[in-house]
């Protein structure tokens, strides 16, 4: 019966209740969306970064170098000669150097020339086939295989540049020799081959366009991922490279922190906005209940005169506030999942990057508690009014 009264009262004030729920819903969904996207970005970013201590490449923006070299999302800074890496490889503090060479794509997926240890670094597993051995053989990531419907022994021609619309290298064709299992890292979106394949294609181009010129053997790479043997390497080598060579060294950990700090400002602004919306929702619950109590003073006095306990009526009003904020929370979470799905589709189309639909995150439980607190505080003051009602006076005076 009590629940019925609560429900009917909410229903009797459809517009007011709708407004409360709407505000709460938007506040919750914005915060929840930010939490989810933030967490997943951080997750993906830190997974791809793990184990890589330093990236070397052509001079330019260090952040750009990291984004292009580690995450394969920005344009590369330029090329460096392979020979420059020799001395680095000799250094006793360096454990491993993974050279990467890019510049071509197939249907928007990057073709990256590298060496086998790069695959080992990500602990990549073959779903089918084997690793690349000779020139023009490629291993493709799971997303590439799925999206482009490529199978073993399929062949394709790459095009120049990192965007879909590049000049095609029509005469040389790549052949798929291996397909990787889903790895949840950047290699899902890559087409991998040996370094020679990349050089061969571009040498060939050069030979064609500059016919008759003396061809100089030049082996350039785009960047290299470096792992150190000890933290000592981190202390000394980046400075050495930046001061003494034509290359630059960038530290992923530092650059990514910087990136998140930059994004953090935007995220904080959004969060502040969302919290403001939630507070307004609280105020709207407060005003709704406060007015309701004023209008329903007679009802309350009547119920008290018929034997209703003040505590019961107090809880009844509190419940009204709580139901409004809880339904706002539930709808907000649903809306945020919907937004996540949309964002995931958009990111997938533009960046080959998708977001997972998660169960309730830890932060969202805190959000539920916050929503409940807003509901409780907004309902508390009006509900306490129950204890101030003088039955005989209220019912006798008009």
């Amino acid at each position, binding site marked *: 019966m009590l629940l019925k009264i609560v429900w*009917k009262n909410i229903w*009797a004030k459809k517009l007011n209740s709708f407004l409360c729920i709407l505000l709460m819903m938007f506040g919750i969904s914005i915060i929840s969306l930010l939490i989810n996207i933030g967490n997943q970005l951080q997750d993906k970013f830190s997974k791809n970064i793990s184990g890589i201590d330093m990236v070397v490449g052509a001079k330019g923006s260090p952040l750009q170098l990291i984004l292009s070299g580690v995450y394969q999302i920005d344009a590369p800074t330029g090329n460096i000669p392979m020979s420059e890496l020799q001395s680095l490889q000799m250094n006793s503090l360096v454990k491993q150097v993974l050279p990467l060479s890019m510049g071509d794509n197939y249907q928007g997926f990057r073709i990256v020339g590298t060496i086998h240890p790069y695959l080992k670094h990500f602990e990549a597993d073959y779903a089918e086939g084997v690793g690349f051995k000779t020139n023009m053989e490629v291993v493709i990531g799971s997303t590439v295989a799925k999206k482009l419907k490529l199978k073993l022994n399929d062949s394709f021609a790459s095009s120049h540049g990192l965007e879909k619309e590049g000049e095609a290298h029509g005469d040389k064709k790549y052949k798929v020799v291996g397909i990787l299992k889903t790895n949840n890292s950047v290699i899902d979106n890559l087409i991998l081959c040996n370094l020679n394949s990349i050089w061969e294609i571009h040498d060939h181009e050069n030979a064609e366009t500059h016919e008759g010129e003396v061809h100089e053997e030049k082996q350039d790479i785009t960047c290299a991922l470096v792992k150190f043997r000890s933290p000592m390497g981190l202390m000394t080598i980046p400075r050495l490279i930046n001061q003494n060579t034509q290359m630059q060294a960038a530290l992923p950990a530092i650059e990514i922190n910087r990136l998140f700090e930059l994004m953090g400002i935007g995220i904080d602004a959004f969060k502040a906005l969302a919290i403001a919306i939630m507070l307004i929702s609280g105020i709207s619950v407060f005003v709704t209940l406060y007015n309701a109590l004023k209008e329903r003073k007679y*009802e309350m006095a009547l119920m008290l005169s018929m034997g209703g*306990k003040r505590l019961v009526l107090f809880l009844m009003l509190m419940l009204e506030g709580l139901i409004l904020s809880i339904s706002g929370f539930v709808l907000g979470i649903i809306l945020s999942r919907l937004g996540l799905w949309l964002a995931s589709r958009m990111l997938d189309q533009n960046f080959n990057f998708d977001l997972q639909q998660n169960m309730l995150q830890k932060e969202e439980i805190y959000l539920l508690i916050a929503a409940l607190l807003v509901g409780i505080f907004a309902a508390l003051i009006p509900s306490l009014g129950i204890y101030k009602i003088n039955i005989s006076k209220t*019912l006798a005076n008009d």
Partner: protein
Amino acid sequence: MLQTNTLKFSYQNKQVFSFPDIHCKSEETLLILGNSGTGKTTFLNLLALLLNPSDGVLTINNTDTTMLNEKSKTDFRAKNVGIVFQKPYFVNALNVSENLVLANFLGNFPMDKLKAEDLAINLGFDHLMSKKVQELSGGEQQRVCIARALMNNPKVILADEPTSALDDENCQKVADLLEKQSKSIGAALIIVTHDHRLKTRFSNQITL
């Protein structure tokens, strides 16, 4: 059934009301008359246990109510006293039928829909049971209030100016219904009023 003895009440501003001793048996009707300002409503609120007397004794159903604490008073009122207020108050979000069983619910009785139906038929508003209370006319609302006061089979029914807002025809009807229904459940009926139309209707009266 209901009996008072030197009942007194004083407001904060030290205006003291002394009320005559009254006494009303089961199935009897007592009319309490008085002009405005004579403390009619105060007296009714005292009888309804909504106010506490400063002096005197009020006995209902053989219980000295002045000895009860606040909580037991609320329970006692829910069980023994049915009140028909001057204005028809309702819980507006609920329909007519729900407003009737609300009396059961708040008085801690099982909700008795059949009893509500019966009363509605007796009082002639059974076709309005699923309507919102605001959609009813004044006379209809007053009848629903009477039905609600009867829902818990109280020992005493108190009516505060039940007819003041009604025309002559409805006034007679409501008075008849009150008397008949109170008798049918064996309750004492006390009407507080200044309505002269009722003076000729009930012989047992007292003037403040």
